[in-house]
């Protein structure tokens, strides 16, 4: 088993968990954590792959690295905005869930 495959499989696992939590959970903070884990999984697939594409000097492919840094910044920006919205929603309704996800 190569390094790329091992971490690639971890990436798939993270994608699966994160996607499920982002879509299925009720608590909005949990859904956001799910989105972030999903993102981590996608990035992991990408970086793990970069180790397969080494150049003559043995350095991995830098393009996925740069793209993942972009992805991390985008994901954190979006998370920050979502958290700000979540705090306002909670302040207004006293609940950290969307109306359709409330029980009873």
């Amino acid at each position, binding site marked *: 088993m190569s390094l790329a495959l091992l971490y690639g499989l971890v990436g798939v696992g993270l994608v699966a968990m994160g996607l499920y939590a982002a879509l299925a959970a009720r608590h909005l903070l949990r859904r956001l954590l799910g*989105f972030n884990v999903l993102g981590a999984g996608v990035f992991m697939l990408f970086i793990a792959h970069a180790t397969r594409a080494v150049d003559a000097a043995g350095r991995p492919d830098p393009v996925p690295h740069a793209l993942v840094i972009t992805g991390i910044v985008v994901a954190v920006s979006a998370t920050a905005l979502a958290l700000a919205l979540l705090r306002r929603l909670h302040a207004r309704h006293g609940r950290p869930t969307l109306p359709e996800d409330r029980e009873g």
Partner: protein
Amino acid sequence: MNAESTLLALLVLPLLAAVLSLLVGRRWLGWLGMLVALLLVVLAVRFALQVAAGGAVAVAIGGWAPPLGIALRADGLSAFMLLVQSVVGLGVHAYALAYFAPARRAFWAAGWLLWGACHALYLSGDVFNLYVTLELVGLGAVALVVLGGSGTVAAALRYLLLALVGSMLYLLGVVVLYLEHGNLDLQALGTLVQPGLASSVAAATMTLGLLLKAAVFPLHVWLPPAHAAAPAPVSALLSALVVKAALYLVVRLWTGLFGELPAAGVALSLLAGLGAAALFWGGVQALLQTRLKPMIAYSTVAQIGLLALVLPLLQGGAVAWNGLMLLVAAHALAKSALFLCAGVVQRQYGHDRIAGLGGVGMQLPLTATAYFVAAVSLVGLPPTMGFFGKYLLLEAAIAQSRPMIAAALVLGSLLTAAYLLRPLALGFTEAATRQAPRTAGLGLQLPGLLLALAALLALLVGAGTPLWRLLAVGMPA
């Protein structure tokens, strides 16, 4: 100014306007906005002419040719979308000038970033760069929705979460493509992609992510609350342009990148099925609404369904392609006009209950006319753009012996007529329920009317041969 410079100007100008919007004094915001929007319309027209005359344009940013760098590419489809974007944008910005008084800086700054993001999306020829533009569009839309106040927070958050998951699914597909081919350039990938598991997975995740963002049934749940709660000019931008951006990418992917896959036919038929379901579900929901803005928002769900419904016809050639483009433009113009009208009504009466619209025809004749023209175009009655679009699509459906699509097209149009004309009937037949204080001035009423009329005027000016020549540039064979 050659075509490459026009393209760069279209990319940079809205971003520059966003920067200026954060720095200039508040009273200059609107004028700056109008100036740049007018300039963009001129540039977009010029660019369309250049593309129609000289063919597709490509610019490698920073002088780095793909696959290492990012190429901007524009064909007829891109130029046409830029044109639609600028015309609708100009109308909505003019309306915002009167709607947000005193000016709200966040509207202009976020609005310009959103506009720039749409341009960047229509021009981008790189699958990862498209991901960044998608996120930019999504976050811009959220920032604009929350301008509607604390009542919009739940809708904005629902939209943000689903949009984020949608773009992450898209990115997953991009990663799979890179894993397989080591390339991100849209054009190069088009020649590299071979039928197989990896391509299918990439196609499935990217399309699913985009359908989520385009609110294609049954992934539409986020749209009606968000579009109904946002301030009217924002709703107009979102319904007319933002959902189209994701749909544009679906068309781009399935006519280029994945068009040669054996699964393409099945996938497009599946999309058509979803579209038909959306057309009827959205239509029925729109009929059941008691307020104007949610009704128009559900109508967007239905109209997006209509656009998805006719996608399989694209494999059959130019007639359907031209018809779809006309329909896209007609919907963008009409839908933005309808939302602007709803905003006027809300300003005038303090509510938008359909039952309380008696006498609108007398009290707000300009707005009622705008609503009427826009509704007629959406329904598809002659001589509007919507009519010509649907006519061409019907012709294509019959020529390609797709009776189900033709039938759904006609039935969907009847349903559209049912829900759109109901408020109008009330407005013209019933007597005024009460005398409303006049607050909605000309500045608020005219933009909607102009947008609605643009759907008629555009046909006089551009339809026929010049438009077909533009759309033929880069049309999938």
